[in-house]
């Protein structure tokens, strides 16, 4: 298992773009996990006398409109982005996969209902839907996670269902069934391990999408609440004080751009390394 993972990773990094993506992904992951150790300053400490300070040895990227250390805030922003992405995708993957497996095994009528629900969810313009929900409940990180999770469930559900349909008549499953294996055993010991690969690739390709939605909502002031440092709120803060200094906007937008690009490059290289034909329809 570990060997197979390493082999896929090596193939993923074989191309230049895949290797670039991997470096960005690894960097963002390290920043997210070790944010408090890496950041040189408290990201929320105000120093109003020192606002819009130019980059220096003390503040590598300068300070924002309240004198907070921009570099430390960017590092903590990685934590928010990854936290939202990993939580939402993990839940969506678990729920979507279960629904997809269920859809492949239940009656044709029930299956059609599940598929229509998937269609209805993916037919909503998700950002606009998110705005409607935020209008009612007010902005919060939880709302962002819930909305993203709901919009991603059909992604995983459809792929899981297609995988199960392809797998269903495989000889080893037939054999298990004849031996009298229980439904739970079939699903968790045989089906899930066999369809996990494609689902994980899908998950990696969804990470930049989630980061974009979170940052977009936070940029509008409708996502993560200040003073918590999200890349979206950092861009918003910088944008409001654009006439004082363009450095905060530039560095926070650049961080978001590099992260989304890196994750996309990595996800695509990973997909090509596993099996490019699987995802052509999506």
């Amino acid at each position, binding site marked *: 298992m570990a060997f197979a993972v390493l082999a896929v990773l090596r193939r993923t990094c074989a191309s230049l773009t895949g290797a670039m993506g991997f470096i960005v992904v690894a960097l963002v992951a390290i920043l997210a996990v070790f944010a408090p150790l890496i950041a040189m300053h408290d990201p929320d400490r105000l120093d109003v006398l020192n606002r819009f300070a130019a980059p220096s040895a003390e503040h590598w990227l300068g300070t924002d409109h309240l004198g907070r250390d921009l570099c430390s805030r960017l590092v903590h922003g990685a934590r928010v982005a990854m936290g939202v992405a990993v939580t939402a995708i993990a839940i969506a993957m678990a729920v979507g996969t279960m629904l997809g497996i269920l859809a492949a095994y239940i009656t044709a009528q029930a299956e059609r209902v599940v*598929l229509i629900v998937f269609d209805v969810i993916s037919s909503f313009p998700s950002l*606009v839907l998110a705005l409607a929900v935020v209008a009612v409940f007010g902005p919060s990180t939880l709302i962002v996670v819930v909305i993203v999770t709901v919009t991603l469930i059909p992604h995983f559900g459809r792929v899981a269902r297609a995988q199960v349909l392809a797998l269903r008549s495989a000889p080893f499953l037939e054999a298990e069934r004849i031996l009298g294996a229980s439904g739970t055993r079939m699903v968790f010991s045989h089906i899930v391990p066999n369809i996990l690969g494609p689902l994980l690739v899908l998950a990696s390709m969804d990470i930049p999408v989630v980061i974009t939605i979170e940052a977009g909502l936070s940029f509008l002031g409708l996502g993560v609440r200040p003073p918590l440092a999200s890349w979206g709120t950092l861009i918003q803060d910088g944008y409001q004080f654009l006439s004082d200094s*363009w450095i905060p906007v530039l560095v926070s937008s650049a961080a978001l751009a590099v992260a989304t690009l890196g994750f996309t490059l990595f996800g695509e290289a990973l997909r090509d390394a596993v099996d490019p034909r699987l995802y052509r329809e999506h």
Partner: protein
Amino acid sequence: MPAARIMNSETARYLASRLVTTVLIVFGAMLLLFTLTTLVPGDPAATLLGPQATPELARRFVHDMGLDQPLHVRLWRFFAAVLAGNLGVDIISGRSVVSIIAAVMPYTLILTFSAIGLAVATGLPLGIYAATHRGSVMDNVLAFVSVAFIAVPSFVIAIFLLLIFAIWLGWLPVLGTSRSGAFLDEFKRMILPTVALAAGWIGFIARLVRASMLEVMGEPYIRTARAYGLSERIVTYKYALKNACIPTLAILGLGIGRLLGGAVLVEIVFARPGIGRLLYDAIAERNYPVVQGTVLVTVILFVLVNLLVDLSYSAIDPRIRREAISSAKAA
């Protein structure tokens, strides 16, 4: 049964199933919006009228809005009103929501359509060039630029454009629309928002056209055309391009949601009027009827465009329709 009869009944069934899904989606959206407004935390009268509202005023407000009716009556009234084309009244200005949306809609539509136009006009030639020069340095550069355009959120591209062209170079006026309605001024103000919104689509279309061109170029009918001695130009543009364009059409439909979402953010970055700005301001003012109306109109627009694209797609390439039917039967 004659083949034509089969086609017709299949077409009819496909059309019917698409229409049913579309209606379901719109009703689902209405139900969701209704549920959301009933979930508004706190007393709506107190929220909307402010702390100075007298009890009588609050009571009259609740009665006027029909909030003292039982839930099923309110749901029924909401559906009846929407189907009659009545989206309610702006609680602040008292104007009808439909007329407010109609007033700002052209701005968003013009921005969206110019972005689509720019994306097709740029993405299509880039994709053809990459496909006909496969493996060249330029092909690799284009592949990277396409991913970058797709991956980086449009509001971030908008901010970069704003920094470069308006702040550092000072070439273009950026914020807002032209008040006087002067065409040239308005045109200049449209450039950056259009480019920001189109960028992702340029990448999408270039990649897609390249991939489908390469696929089509390997087909036997292209080999036959070459064997007949047709010039490479005619083979590429007349035979290959036509079939390679079909997936592009599908992407236009699928991407419209992304585009509408992007338009909201781009409108806000460039302080332009439009649906996005309207929705954003309505959320800030807790102006629920406007939020409700705007979201509903956006969803309907989105679903209708999807339906249109889907139907024209299956009219161009009947295989899609048959695939859809066979997969529906298999399900």
